[in-house]
Structures are given as structure tokens and as C-alpha cells.
């Protein structure tokens, strides 16, 4: 059945991907074991003349229970509605609602139930008086129940789009469109103020915003009984979202001050989980993702890996190796025997390419078949960003979603969601090992190649600026409400 799915007008790239992931989580496509994986995506349809970034979409779901589960678990779905009627004028809407079968309508209109009608306009605020007039205009619907604005049994929505000029930055609507429907479910946005970073006890410079963290947890299909790992755990901001959805969590970081000490006994990664009454992570440890300490033979243990790798803009990655490696000397510094106990190993810079290589290799080995790898990947916007990006690839993984969030005029980050589709074979392990050695031997070269920081913060290349005419002709990403979303 087709439902009307209305999104919040933000994080546009993330919205359909989230619903697709939740459809997978709630097994909308049945208990498939790989065979019909290809067909497992939802059918979508846009209202006529609507821009793809419009908040109004139609989605085909097998039942109302699925629609409710998906909507209630989501972060970006304002509501999923059973559409009772639509039209380009109120007369057409009335005609359409009258034609909608009574057996679908009457159960929600009976005298024992309570209801509420909300009037909503996209791109315009309508006055209280106008809202009331519109509700009164619906008198032809035989509401028998009592109105209850606090806690109604049934929520009805009257939604309108019109040619108001700006239309939140979307191309103007060609034709007015009015929708009337019964709400099936909607996102619980109250989560966001509860988990917002400004009330979090222990914060780091790159703590993940709560809304994005929840989206990541949804992409990773976090749910009770699953084990989710973050190799760059920091203050735990991503795992908190996964734990909220009931998953077991595990995190590692190369910085022992963050994972072990925090800012004292009541301000550390553990206390962040305690603050929300969440179960503690199964484990926190200090480990280097470049040389992971997992025992040989251990594989396919995590259901998902979610992380925000250090890509050198807000925070740079570090790996084992030390000063000597930095200077290009092959021989490592030897720690004198009497100083071994409390020795603090130095670390070397960790380029993005190497970091992502290690992450994919680790994920390919440690994620269960069908499990997910969800991580942010930075993209320079000076490149022809309209065209296809080259995202990292791995033979064990299939990319199923890439959602861009623009961070500045120079770069944005893309949330990549990958599914493990192939086993981690010995050939893949060997190839990864060879690459690992290449990274070690050409440390300085990779450090320069994979340095996003300088690309983001260096002044724009004058030569490129001179040849700027061609770049001006490139179609810019549309701005909504004066900003990119």
C-alpha cells in the first residue's frame, strides 16, 4: 500500500536512506537470506511536479505495522500517513476524500474515539484563524468522536504546498497541492534535546552531534542483541546512540587519556552512558587501528562498525610508529630496558588513505556477513563534486547509501553505508597486508597524498581561481533557507 511519507526539511540526503535502512531492520522484505537482496529496496514516488528534495514522498509498504515501526524509530520522518485524499484545490480534496472507501475511514471516526486535526503548510506560516477555517471546511467528514488536542487516539493532518515564492529554496511549486491523511507514526524528536551535546557531561572536540549519531545507528541497524564497534570511540558519542537502540557496544581509541581517564571519575566515557541510563559498553580499550590487537582467527564478531575516522581537519589521526618514522628513518627507536615500564610510546601521523584502508580491512574481517560498516568520509567540494565521487571500495563490501552533509564551502562529509556481501578470504588478507607494508615504507608520501587538512585550510590555488570561469558554470548545490542542508 502507498503511504504518504513527509520528512523534516533537513539533512536531505539522509532521509530516504534512513527509511530504507529501517525497512531492512524491520524485515519489510521478509527473512531473505541473500538471494533476493537485489530487489530489497522500497518503491518511492514523488507527488506530481515535486522536486526530489521535497519533503513529500509516497512510499510503498506492505502494512501499517511496518509503516508505524519505521516512522517511530526514524529521526527524519515527520510522519507517515494513510492518505485519505489529495487535490489541487479544496473542492478537489473534498471530492477525493469522499471517494476514499468508507471501510477505511469509519473505524477511525467512531464516537468512542478521540481525534485531532493539525494544519500544516510547507514554506509558509498560516494564521490560527486560517487554520481554524480550514478545519471547519472539513465538516463533510463525519467525525463522531470527541476532539482531544493532548492525547488523541487518531491524528489527522491537513498539509498544503503552494506557490508562496521561496518555497524553502525548492523550485516553486507549479501547482498547489493539498493532502489529508491519518498519521500512522512519526519520529520521536524528543530524543534530540535529551541527548543533545550541550548537556553531555564529557565532550571532546569532535563529539558527534546527537541527531547524526542516531542516523548512523539507524544506518547500522543497531538493535538489542547486536554488537557494535567503534574503533575511534573518543568520548563515545556514536556508541551512545547505538546503545540507546539496545545494541551492545565496544570502543577503542589510541588516546588513553580519553578512554581511561576522561576528566575525572564522574566525567568520562562511562559516565556519558550512565547519564542516560544506558548499559555500559562491553569494552573500552586503547588500541591502534593500524595494528589492531585482535587474536589471529578471530573474525565475524561485530554486527556493525560505526565510526567517524579522524580525517585531519578537526582532529588528525595517529598510529604507532613514532618520531623516527616521521623523519623517514627505518630503524625504530629502541626503548631502554629500565624505562620500559612507564614508557609512553610516541605516535606518528596517520593519513586518511591509510586510515580508511585499515578500517575497511578490519571491517571486512570482523563484521558478520550481511553486517554493516557505517562511516564518514570527507570530500573536497572544489573537485567536480556534482559528478560521481570515488568512494573507498572493498571486494567484501557493497555501498548502499552515501549521504552528503556540507560542512563548509571547501569540504563536506559523506556518510557511507556498506553491507558485507563477501567473506574475508586469504587472498584479500594477503593483499591488505602488502598494502599495509607499502604504507609503512612510503609513510611520508602517503602523508602528503592523504592530507586533507592542507587542502581545506590552504588558500585557494590562484591558478584555479584564474581559470575560475569554468567552475562558475558548474551547477551549485541548492541552498535551502539560506543554508545547505
Amino acid at each position, binding site marked *: 500500500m502507498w503511504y504518504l511519507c513527509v520528512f523534516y526539511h533537513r539533512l536531505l540526503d539522509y532521509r530516504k536512506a534512513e527509511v530504507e535502512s529501517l525497512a531492512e531492520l524491520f524485515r519489510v522484505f521478509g527473512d531473505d537470506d541473500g538471494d533476493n537482496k537485489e530487489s530489497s529496496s522500497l518503491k518511492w514516488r514523488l507527488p506530481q511536479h515535486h522536486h526530489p528534495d521535497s519533503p513529500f514522498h509516497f512510499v510503498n509498504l506492505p502494512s501499517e505495522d511496518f509503516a508505524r515501526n519505521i516512522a517511530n524509530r526514524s529521526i527524519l520522518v515527520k510522519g507517515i500517513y494513510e492518505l485519505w485524499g489529495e487535490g489541487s484545490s479544496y473542492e478537489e480534496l473534498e471530492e477525493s476524500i469522499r471517494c476514499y472507501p468508507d471501510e477505511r475511514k469509519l473505524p477511525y471516526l467512531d464516537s468512542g474515539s478521540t481525534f485531532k486535526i493539525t494544519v500544516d503548510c510547507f514554506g509558509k506560516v498560516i494564521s490560527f484563524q486560517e487554520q481554524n477555517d480550514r478545519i471547519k471546511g472539513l465538516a463533510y467528514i463525519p467525525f463522531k468522536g470527541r476532539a482531544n488536542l493532548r492525547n488523541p487516539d487518531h491524528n489527522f493532518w491537513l498539509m498544503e504546498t503552494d506557490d508562496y515564492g521561496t518555497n524553502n529554496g525548492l523550485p516553486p511549486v507549479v501547482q498547489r497541492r493539498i493532502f489529508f491523511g491519518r498519521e500512522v507514526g512519526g519520529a520521536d524528536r524528543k530524543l534530540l534535546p535529551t541527548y543533545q551535546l550541550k548537556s553531555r557531561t564529557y565532550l571532546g572536540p569532535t563529539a558527534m552531534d546527537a541527531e547524526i549519531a542516531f542516523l548512523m545507528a539507524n544506518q547500522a541497524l543497531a538493535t538489542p542483541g547486536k554488537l557494535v564497534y567503534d574503533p575511534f570511540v573518543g568520548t563515545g558519542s556514536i556508541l551512545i546512540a547505538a546503545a540507546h537502540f539496545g545494541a551492545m557496544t565496544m570502543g577503542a581509541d589510541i588516546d588513553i587519556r580519553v578512554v*581511561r581517564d576522561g576528566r575525572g571519575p564522574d566525567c568520562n566515557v562511562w559516565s556519558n552512558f550512565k547519564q542516560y541510563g544506558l548499559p555500559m559498553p562491553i569494552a573500552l580499550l586503547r588500541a591502534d587501528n593500524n595494528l589492531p590487537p585482535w587474536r*589471529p582467527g578471530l573474525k565475524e564478531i561485530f554486527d556493525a562498525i560505526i565510526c567517524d575516522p579522524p580525517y585531519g581537519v578537526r582532529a588528525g589521526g595517529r598510529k604507532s610508529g613514532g618520531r623516527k618514522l616521521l623523519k623517514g628513518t627505518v630503524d625504530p627507536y629502541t626503548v631502554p630496558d629500565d624505562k620500559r615500564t612507564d*614508557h609512553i610510546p610516541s605516535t606518528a601521523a596517520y593519513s586518511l588513505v591509510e586510515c580508511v584502508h585499515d578500517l575497511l580491512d578490519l571491517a571486512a574481517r570482523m563484521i558478520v556477513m550481511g553486517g554493516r560498516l557505517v562511516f564518514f568520509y570527507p570530500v573536497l567540494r572544489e573537485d567536480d563534486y556534482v559528478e560521481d565521487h570515488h568512494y573507498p571500495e572493498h571486494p567484501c563490501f557493497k555501498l548502499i547509501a552515501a549521504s552528503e552533509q556540507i560542512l563548509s564551502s571547501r569540504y563536506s562529509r559523506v556518510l557511507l553505508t556498506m553491507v558485507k556481501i563477501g567473506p574475508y578470504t586469504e587472498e584479500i588478507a594477503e593483499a591488505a597486508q602488502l598494502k599495509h607494508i607499502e604504507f609503512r615504507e612510503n609513510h611520508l608520501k602517503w602523508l602528503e597524498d592523504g592530507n586533507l587538512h592542507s587542502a581545506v585550510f590552504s588558500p585557494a590555488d590562484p591558478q584555479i581561481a584564474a581559470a575560475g570561469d569554468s567552475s562558475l558554470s558548474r551547477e551549485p548545490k541548492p541552498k535551502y533557507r539560506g543554508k545547505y542542508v
Partner: protein
Amino acid sequence: MRLLTHNMLSSNIKGVANGFPLRIEVEKVVEKKVDLNADFLRNIFPKIEWKAFAEAARTLGYAELPEDADSSFLDSDDFLDKFHHALLELHLEEGALICPETGRRFPVNKGIPNMLLHEDEV
């Protein structure tokens, strides 16, 4: 550090062939109650190296685990309780993990194992 973590870790010092299982040096063990999730236990059971796990539990002072276990044991609630307790409720709060080959000490402080290698070990 829970024993689940211990069961996943090895010494990855360059040149070490048998870095698993790490020997446990106990200074302080704490017990923290957590809710039992049978699905999780059944999922994780096949990934556990049982001998190393039972041995580690004994080192922490818990000797109730059988020497060997196979997946048929998972039907017993009594076994699940013990497995759960050893896997998730026992914590090595202070101590160390010792590389079985080189004797290198990986310290465990405030429950966090420090697996980072020195410059000459990578």
C-alpha cells in the same frame, strides 16, 4: 576489562607468533551485575576460544565453568548463567595482560587495557 575482551585480544608485537591467550596478572577484580541477554550469548558463543576463556575465568577466581563446552550446552539455563557471569560480569579493574611469548606487560588500569605497542615493537 571483561573476559570477552580478553578472549578477543592477543599480543601483536612484531615477530610474535603465538600472542594468544594473554596471561592475566590480577590486582583487582570487580563484579558488576548486568542483565542476561540469551540471544547475545548464543551469538557470541561460537566466537569464544573456550579453553582460554575458562582458564581466564579461573585466574579471576571463578572456577564454575566446565573445561570444555559445545553449543549443546546453550540449552541449559544454568550454563547460560555461568557463561554470562564469566563473560560479562567479571571485570579486571587493575592488573595486566602478559604476552605469553615475550613476557611484555600490557597494563590494565581502571578497566582499560592498554594495547599500544612501543616504537621498537611495531
